[in-house]
């Protein structure tokens, strides 16, 4: 089957294998078919040699977390993320992956009121202990929410779909921190319902393109757009590639992770007594491997906590991967175990994670996760 993969991109892989240990699914299975080199080989087999799409081949593609930990590990700069997104897009078009129930589950993300209704229902269900544990949703979801009010128009804060509904407190904390640095913030609220990251992961890139167009039209101007979810930020920074237009490129250049942007404006942020906490930094994959701005988390946090500690697992994925933890619960659980062990080796009081998916996935295993902005906000409030 023609997967519509760029032959030159595919050919960049020289099979050296250096990416293998940086792949969470290879790490936990030891199975090369679940490694980046293996998946690239299978793409070649399918596209060039017409290998049949057996259950095993599809499983190899479907079990990829799309964490892109293999990209910085690859000295040949193989654009793995784009290869896998394209593979999934073609397979979804042919009905090989992403069945109807998954598409239906993704539909509300682009419609905030549906999502709010959905997650209010989820919150109630959670209180009633009706939410299956495998969903990995542990932090109590708020039932009623106060809307976010704009405080000025220096920057946008992208509030997204899942994030907004489930972790509005993080937005509030982020807004207060940016405001403390002297900037007025406009939350995007219903202007820009969803970044489309989860759709692109599932192979529904057309939906993502539509969402990108909507967002670009709604957020016209040259204001920076700050994002407090690493997965959303990575997706929005990729609009240039996804749409292939100069407008999209210009839009992507306005997108910053909130920590990345704050690191550039640290001088404006008041210095206060640090929180008396040892904090471990958990780098979300899409911050570290895709946006590559994970150092800024350290820059912004360091002055506000007693001690920052590093994990020793080279930024290996935690297994959350957007909807991955729901779709592949067994692998996601095994991957998380490795991460929890790495966290326990450092004995932190709290774990800072700049991505809601990671936070919830780790929290479900009892890890005390918190967004870096919430920590800074607490320090500022305390002063």
């Amino acid at each position, binding site marked *: 089957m023609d997967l519509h993969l760029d032959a*030159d991109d595919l*050919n*960049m*892989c*020289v*099979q*050296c*294998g*250096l990416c*293998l*240990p940086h792949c969470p699914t290879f790490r936990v*299975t*030891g*199975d*090369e*078919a679940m490694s980046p080199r*293996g998946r690239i*080989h*299978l793409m070649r*087999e*399918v596209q060039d*040699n017409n*290998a*049949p*799409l*057996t*259950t*095993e*081949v*599809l499983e*190899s593609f479907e079990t990829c977390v799309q964490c892109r930990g293999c990209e910085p590990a*690859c*000295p*040949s*700069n*193989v654009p793995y993320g784009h290869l896998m997104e394209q593979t999934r897009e073609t397979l979804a078009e*042919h*009905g*090989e992956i992403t069945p109807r129930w998954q598409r239906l589950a993704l539909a509300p993300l682009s419609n905030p009121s549906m999502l709010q209704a959905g997650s209010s229902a989820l919150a109630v269900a959670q209180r009633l202990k009706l939410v299956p544990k495998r969903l990995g949703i542990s932090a109590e979801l708020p039932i009623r929410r106060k809307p976010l009010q704009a405080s000025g128009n220096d920057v946008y804060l992208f509030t997204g779909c899942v994030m907004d509904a489930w972790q509005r407190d993080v937005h509030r904390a982020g807004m207060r921190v940016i405001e403390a640095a002297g900037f007025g913030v406009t939350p995007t609220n219903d202007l820009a319902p969803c970044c489309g990251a989860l759709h692109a992961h599932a192979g529904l890139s057309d939906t993502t393109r539509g969402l990108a167009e909507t967002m670009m039209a709604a957020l016209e101007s040259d204001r920076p757009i700050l994002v407090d979810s690493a997965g959303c930020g990575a997706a929005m920074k990729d609009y240039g590639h996804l749409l292939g237009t100069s407008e999209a490129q210009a839009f992507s250049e306005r997108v910053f992770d909130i920590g990345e942007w704050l690191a550039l404006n640290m001088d404006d942020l008041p210095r206060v007594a640090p929180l008396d906490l040892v904090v471990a930094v958990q780098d979300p994959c899409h911050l570290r491997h895709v946006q590559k701005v994970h150092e800024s988390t350290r820059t912004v946090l360091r002055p506000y906590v007693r001690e920052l500690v590093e994990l*020793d697992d080279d930024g290996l994925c935690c297994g959350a991967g957007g909807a991955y933890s729901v779709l592949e619960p067994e692998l996601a659980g095994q991957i998380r175990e490795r991460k929890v062990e790495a966290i326990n080796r450092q004995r932190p009081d709290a774990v800072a994670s700049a991505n809601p998916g990671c936070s919830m996935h780790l929290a479900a295993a009892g890890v005390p996760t918190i967004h870096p902005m919430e920590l800074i906000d607490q320090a500022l409030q305390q002063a």
Partner: protein
Amino acid sequence: MSLLDRFRDRVGSGSATSGDPLVDDLRAVLSPDRVKTDGAQRSLLGKDASVFDGGSAGPICYPISTNEVVDIMQVAQRHDRAVVPRGAGTGLAGGAIPLGAPIVVAVTKMRSIGEIDEANGVAWVEPGVINLDLTRHLTPLGYHFAPDPSSQQVCTIGGNVANNSGGPHCLAYGVTNSHVAAIEIVTPSGDVVMLGGLDPEPDGYDLRGIFIGSEGTLGIATKVAVRLTKNRPAVRTLLLSFASVRDAANTVSDVIAAGIVPAAMEVMDQRITEAVENYVGAGYPTNAAAVLLAEVDGPEEGIDIDADRIAEIGRANNATMVRVAADNTERALLWKGRKTAFGAVAQIAPDYYLHDTVVPRSALADVLDEIYAIADRHDLLIMNVFHAGDGNLHPLIVFDGRDEGVLERVHAAGGEIIEASLAAGGVLSGEHGIGVEKQKYMDRLFSDADLDHQNRLRRAFDPVCRANPGKILPMGHSCADIQQLRSVPTGVWG
């Protein structure tokens, strides 16, 4: 695609083998999910990191214990099938490439680090443990595993043992053979045997030494007692650049001639340095014809004396720049560059063929000149990156395999490089092994009688040539011939 077609596709090649008694027997001794038969997956394990195609894997097994490896061997015996061990598949000589659709035994699920026996200075590890994981595990205790192949972040201890692998720091510390005390193996007939031991001077024949470097042809290693090496108290890393590769090579032989034993001495030429710098951004000079990365270690006092002398010798050989890494971060970045050099070449062309010969240090400069000339004659792009300290050359031919006729030129040039190295008094392989790559050159180095004895040794371990057939010994010597007879007709396992 019709629904029926899709169903057929989904069932796929897996169905062609279901009901195969070999597979059923393997599934009975392992769990079914640890025996893979899918066609595309078998084609994946038909390759390693080398350029060799043409491998074909039979069923792929993922054992998790020595007992399971014994069981696999017994099934192989009953069905008269060959067995090929596999680690991370980073071999560069095609050692793990399965010939004749054998059972592939991937040890990557056997990866626990067992007892650390400080009294005897060893750690017991399973063969699938990744080299760098082992060192990281030992670091807090003050030790490391000395062999550090450039592939150390991924290659396995089993693969290191089987290939007797080396690395940049083996110049002072010796290759894998010096760092393994004992090996538990499963022989091709299914016996569990311990080779070597923890005694400093074990009695009897050194069968451990015979197994190390045997490339999977004498059985499967299932447990390894690796020696613990104390961490280095202090380290200095120097980066020198030169206006010619010859100056760099001469510096290396002069350093050794001066009686200095650096921990490592690595040279990269300009093209490779450019590719590396583009990936790591370590501050390598991209305008120098060659760079030399030299490292000395030892007690803090005295270490700068050696570092200064190396810098001096470099300057005497026209070094255009000498820099000492300021801290651990800079050192780590420089080494990351050196260690990812082979992978980084795909920025230049999609395929590479990495050679591995050893020449006397004094002949380094001349052989390098000859290698560049060979590449010119065949109209090929060649780069050199090598363990200069022990004369281990790694000429790297980069090409695009899609170009008509290029592979013939690559192989022809490769042959001439090997000839040139042998003519200068060198040997066939520094560290990557013979595999399928260099069999045909073995009779250049060994007489018929030599090869015959090697074959008899092999047959003593493996009378029917069951383990990794078709490797090391050239055609015309019995194990290679037997493999030809034994291969399964294509179409069965293809």
